[in-house]
């Protein structure tokens, strides 16, 4: 049971575990993660590469790689996404829930016109004619501010820049007016100057449509600007969770502190070098007892390597999984 209960949550994830079967043995990518998303809420999931954040989204969409196994529950609009057969899931994904992927260069089919790729969902799910769906697609491309949208709908993906392709992906995901949007590092592959524009378009449209977003990223600046609530993930486990503003103002967990500390800031006084968290991210593989961050933590005490710290309420709406912060609450 999570410690924060929502009465009207749109998505209710409980005890989510994602494992991959590899020749070397099973690897746990997501380890007992529970969280809720309220309608219209923007939830940020942050963490380093390999922390399991993208796999949470893939498991919700039924898009895990073939060797992936999932357990737990994810209730969305009264149905458990994790228990649904693919055919039933097809009535949810691309309809009430859609996803934007990390790499816009490879996430669109090179063989089909952009407009047709957008229109397909409307044709299949809403029974629109090709012409009506095409018109809707053109209108949506206009809303993500693609210049000359009606004509550009007839172009192929290779005729667009990376930023423009990600706008196309956003248009495709929002075209069906979903209740929940899963965004998997949508700006990571883009030029820094384009990132802000993409985020703004995404946030603006989602707010207009009342769409809730789970925003997975390792860009803390984006999270601070966009998200209502934040989950900090490490080694597949939730380290800290809470409303964005207080969490960023005063992170409780040593890992969250380190992560924020390692963010370069232009406004801050020049430090001689980039701050880092010592050590290397825990490689997937055999789960060790104790806190996954223990080996890199500078406040480590004996118990950290033997007992896994449970998530504990440290302030109203704030959770942390640390032996030290737990005592402070």
């Amino acid at each position: 049971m999570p410690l924060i209960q929502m009465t009207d949550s749109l998505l209710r994830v409980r005890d989510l575990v994602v494992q991959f079967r590899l020749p070397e043995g099973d690897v746990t990518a997501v380890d007992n993660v529970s969280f809720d998303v309220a309608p219209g809420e923007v939830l940020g999931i942050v963490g380093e590469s390999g922390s399991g954040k993208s796999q949470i989204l893939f498991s919700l969409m039924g898009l895990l790689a073939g060797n992936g196994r999932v357990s737990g529950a994810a209730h969305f609009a009264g149905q458990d996404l994790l228990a649904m057969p693919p055919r039933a899931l097809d009535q949810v994904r691309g309809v009430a829930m859609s996803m934007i992927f990390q790499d816009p260069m490879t996430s669109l089919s090179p063989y089909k016109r952009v407009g047709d790729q957008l229109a397909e969902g409307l044709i299949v799910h809403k029974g629109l004619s090709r012409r009506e769906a095409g018109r809707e697609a053109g209108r949506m491309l206009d809303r993500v501010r693609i210049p000359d949208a009606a004509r550009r709908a007839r172009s192929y993906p290779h005729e667009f820049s990376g930023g423009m392709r990600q706008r196309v992906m956003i248009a495709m995901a929002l075209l069906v007016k979903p209740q929940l949007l899963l965004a998997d590092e949508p700006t990571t592959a883009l030029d820094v100057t384009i990132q802000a524009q993409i985020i703004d378009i995404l946030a603006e449209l989602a707010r207009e449509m009342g769409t809730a977003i789970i925003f997975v990223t390792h860009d803390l600046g984006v999270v601070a600007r966009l998200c209502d609530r934040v989950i900090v993930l490490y080694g597949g486990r939730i380290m800290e969770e809470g409303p964005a503003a207080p969490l960023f103002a005063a992170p409780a967990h040593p890992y969250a502190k380190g992560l924020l500390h390692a963010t370069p800031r232009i406004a801050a006084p020049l430090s001689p070098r980039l701050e880092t968290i010592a050590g290397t991210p825990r490689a997937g593989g055999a789960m060790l007892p104790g806190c996954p961050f223990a080996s890199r933590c500078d406040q480590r005490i004996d118990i950290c390597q033997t007992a896994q710290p449970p998530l504990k309420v440290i302030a109203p709406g704030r959770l942390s999984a640390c032996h030290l912060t737990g005592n402070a609450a």
Partner: protein
Amino acid sequence: MLRFLTTRAGDGILTLAALVTLTFFVMRLAPGGPFSSNRKISPDILANIEATYHLDEPLLQQFLRYVWGVVRFDFGPSIRFRDYSVADILISGLPYSLTIGLWAVLVATVTGVTLGILGALKRNSIIDYSAGVIAVIGIAVPIFVLAPLMQVYFALTLRWLPVGGWGDSWRNLVLPIVALSLPNIAYISRLTRAAMIETLRENYIRTAMAKGIGGRRVVWNHALTGAVLPVVAYLGPATAAIITGSIVIETIFALPGIGRHFVDAALNRDYPLVMGITILYGGFLIVFNTLADILRGWLDPRVRNE
């Protein structure tokens, strides 16, 4: 499109010119000649015969004479088959090779692509393994072993089909077509399977799945294009090779196609016939490669602008 075609036609003519030149001189470098046989011919008679075919002229002059003929669509007389011109021989044999060859290409493509896709979608299933076995047999067992076995079983034992020969019935065509398409079925199915497996791992397939349009639509509407592109590229040269006949198939099934001339003409040093065959095959290669490129451009917008 028009510009593409004119460019390709220009390239094609240059390629053919190079092919004609090279073949002409390389062929003459080979020892022997059309009249070097065990039988002694008196020098006077030999000189007479060579004069008839202009073989006594300097090589360069012979070459120019041949080229001048080709430009006027005169491919010269066959030396071996007296009273027949090269054009006569090729035109009379081509319909047989074309009929069997085009059917074989069609059968190989449809069967190969279907087996490849089924194998990729149901990996490690019975279908996949059966397709794999067919592929191994088709590639590894030579056609001169398979074709006679087919004759023995389907023609002699079961008596379903004629052993060989060309008749009015479609039944004469079945065994040669199957024998000619088998290695290609094998190759195309492996090509399709590999391309389909690779395509299904693409990010845009994941995007399509995320749209909830259903697995079947994802395969047919999104993955198929990527899976058949390598097949299209293969079909260009393969079609040219298949429709110009096969000496093995034509010998085993006693068919009057042109495939046997590829070998016979060279062995007999029938210079004009070798040249004619070379030009025909080269022309088919150029035409079918161009067709394959057009088809590829139609399927893949990224190659269109190249």
